[in-house]
């Protein structure tokens, strides 16, 4: 297993190829398109025996993915941002069909205004859908979590679709060294999908997702999805142990980095967390006991693992690359609920950063760690901070000056 330089997008395509997927419903959107282009190239060249169909929208794409998975074939699809939202009605619906497949989302900020660069508001819109949700931080993880997602989602104790998320540009278009596993070894880890009772056939009509009237039947079906998602925690741990035995790479639902003796930890998801690792190393060099806690798995929520990682710390700086408008950071809110009532819970300090790909430079990580430590000294959480600098506002005011001049000019005065 030698290492190869490939992008995060190519790693996602490799997960589909090694999983020997049968069917790939597709629709293009930046920054995801490279994934389906790569798969299309392999199908064309005969390297992957699969059927790719380009649909007319993400809504149809997710429907096709769910319907195909319900026939018992292995399905892969991918989207991003506005595309995920366009398919969102069916994201919620196909989870209720209990049809397992893998959807890779390449995170990109949502309109308005339109942007191309990443944050997590897109994938968090699917947070409550019943899809399992895994967040990769490196290209290697994109590939490996893709394989784990099939194994866990197809397990009869789970039977749910899964989203594997990677960040646009910072990971999707970034090449890194990746170990591409041997196909035969992957076959041992991930045998063909045994759909059991699903068995939807053209000659044998089945109506999925019928209407139920009355809260009792409705609640039954929704509680069952919840129970299946909760089962995925244990099933993931089992699968990850088998994966480690076969491939030597360990994937806990929550990654910790230099956190064992840390007084202050950063908590964040996705590939910006590798920037936090660099800051942790630099802060350790400066004599500060700082670490990183990174949930790889957001759904099901790994509450116990996060409590174990965070108890006894003086402070946790939660850096959300998302903003629940009118509330604050989503991960911050979930962690606050998760730690509520524990006597040895850390002080939580909330930071919002990285929206639309806004960089978080090392100096901000240092200042975040300092603010978290100050909060621990004061014994009270600080006001949430939206990372923004005076220089950024001055640049914004310059742009607004241009806009204001345009507004005041009469159209006929322009050339």
């Amino acid at each position: 297993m030698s290492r190869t330089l490939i992008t995060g997008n190519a790693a996602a395509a490799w997960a589909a190829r090694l999983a020997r997927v049968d069917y790939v419903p597709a629709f293009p959107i930046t920054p995801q398109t490279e994934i389906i282009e790569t798969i299309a190239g392999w199908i064309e060249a005969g390297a992957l025996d699969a059927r790719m169909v380009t649909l007319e929208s993400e809504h149809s794409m997710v429907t096709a993915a769910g319907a195909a998975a319900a026939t018992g074939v292995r399905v892969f699809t991918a989207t991003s941002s506005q595309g995920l939202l366009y398919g969102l009605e069916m994201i919620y619906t196909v989870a209720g069909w209990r049809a397992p497949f893998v959807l890779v989302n390449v995170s990109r900020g949502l309109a308005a205004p339109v942007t191309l660069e990443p944050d997590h508001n897109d994938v968090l819109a699917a947070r409550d859908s019943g899809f399992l949700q895994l967040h990769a931080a490196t290209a290697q993880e994109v590939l490996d979590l893709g394989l784990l997602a099939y194994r866990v989602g197809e397990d009869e104790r789970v039977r749910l679709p899964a989203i594997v998320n990677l960040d646009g540009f910072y990971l999707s278009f970034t090449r890194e060294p990746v170990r591409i596993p041997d196909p035969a070894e992957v076959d041992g880890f991930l045998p063909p999908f045994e759909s059991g009772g699903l068995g939807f056939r053209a000659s044998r009509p089945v109506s999925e997702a019928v209407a139920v009237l009355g809260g009792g039947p409705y609640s039954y079906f929704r509680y069952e999805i919840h129970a299946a998602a909760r089962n995925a925690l244990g099933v993931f741990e089992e699968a990850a142990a088998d994966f480690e035995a076969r491939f030597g790479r360990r994937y806990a639902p929550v990654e910790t980095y230099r956190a064992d003796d840390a007084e202050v930890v950063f908590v964040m998801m996705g590939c910006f967390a590798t920037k936090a690792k660099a800051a942790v190393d630099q802060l350790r060099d400066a004599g500060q006991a700082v670490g990183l806690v990174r949930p790889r798995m957001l759904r099901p929520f790994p509450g116990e693992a996060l409590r174990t990682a965070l108890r006894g710390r003086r402070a946790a700086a939660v850096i959300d690359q998302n903003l629940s408008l009118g509330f604050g950071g989503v991960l911050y809110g979930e962690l606050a609920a998760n730690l509520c009532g524990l006597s040895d819970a850390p002080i939580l300090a909330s930071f919002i950063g990285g929206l639309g790909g806004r960089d978080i430079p090392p100096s901000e990580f240092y200042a975040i760690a300092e603010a978290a430590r100050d909060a621990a000294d004061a014994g009270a959480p600080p006001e949430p901070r939206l990372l923004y600098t005076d220089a950024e506002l001055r640049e914004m005011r310059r742009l607004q000056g241009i806009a204001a001049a345009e507004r005041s000019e009469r159209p006929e005065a322009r050339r």
Partner: protein
Amino acid sequence: MYRVRFHGRGGQGMKTASRILGSAFFRSGFEVQDAPRYGAERRGAPMFAYVRAARREIHERGVITRPDLVVVADDSLTASPAAGTTTGLDEHTVLLIASTETTRTWQDRLRHRGPTLALPIDPADSASLRFVGAACAAAAAQLVGVIAASDFEAALRDELAPLGEPAATQNLELGRATWRRFEPHAGLVREGPDAVASISERPDWIDLPFDAARIATPAIHGAATSVEVRTGLWRTLRPVIDEARCRHCTWICSTLCPDGAIEVRADGGPRIDLDHCKGCMVCMAVCPSHAIESIPEATADAHAPEELQP
């Protein structure tokens, strides 16, 4: 860690150059990260790509703000602040500019405090324009001084394999010539230091003020602003109409021009608006009478081109 940034225009091969350098570092035993960054995703638009290489796992990610080497494939970018060619340069940074002008000219013009070198472009030799990416990659690989020639050549062959054999070989020849030319400068680029927490400046964080919705809405009030943007400056190839062959079926080229940069003259023939033509050459591809050819923009004319006139 080595941090290298390549600046160019979409279509000049800077993404490929970054991949060649990245693969060459990787073959030489380095951990590597390389990535392109572009906004408009159009041929001719300013873009950049970057490479990090270190002998340990790389945790840094995203755009390089403190480069050890900056390579500029198109010298017209140095006049465009938005292209960001000089962002984060200090006396430690080596600046390499592909240009028909001399090293001395660029030293005087840019007054960069660090080493400045020109990568010679010969206007009479179309290969030096077409394969500028291979030349930039070769110069960069030589300047860092830790990559063997065999690793560079293997990396170039790997990355250019999709182009087919003749193009790969032509690129390799220019790459080899550039590699030899820059031998005297091997090792000029030095690894930059990592950020240090104890001497960091504090971020100038502010609490964002509330603005009225009429201010805080991403709206454009001035119409037809795209006319103001001289996208003709992005052009690396210029379409030229052979009036003797043109049959004045002007609706074809003018309709299919993605930028609406071809208008119909009074006599029914086409006129190309060089202020806004980006040089995508769709018109050349669709012209039924093959009356449109392309010439390299750099050699289009020595006197002031139309788009530079006031």
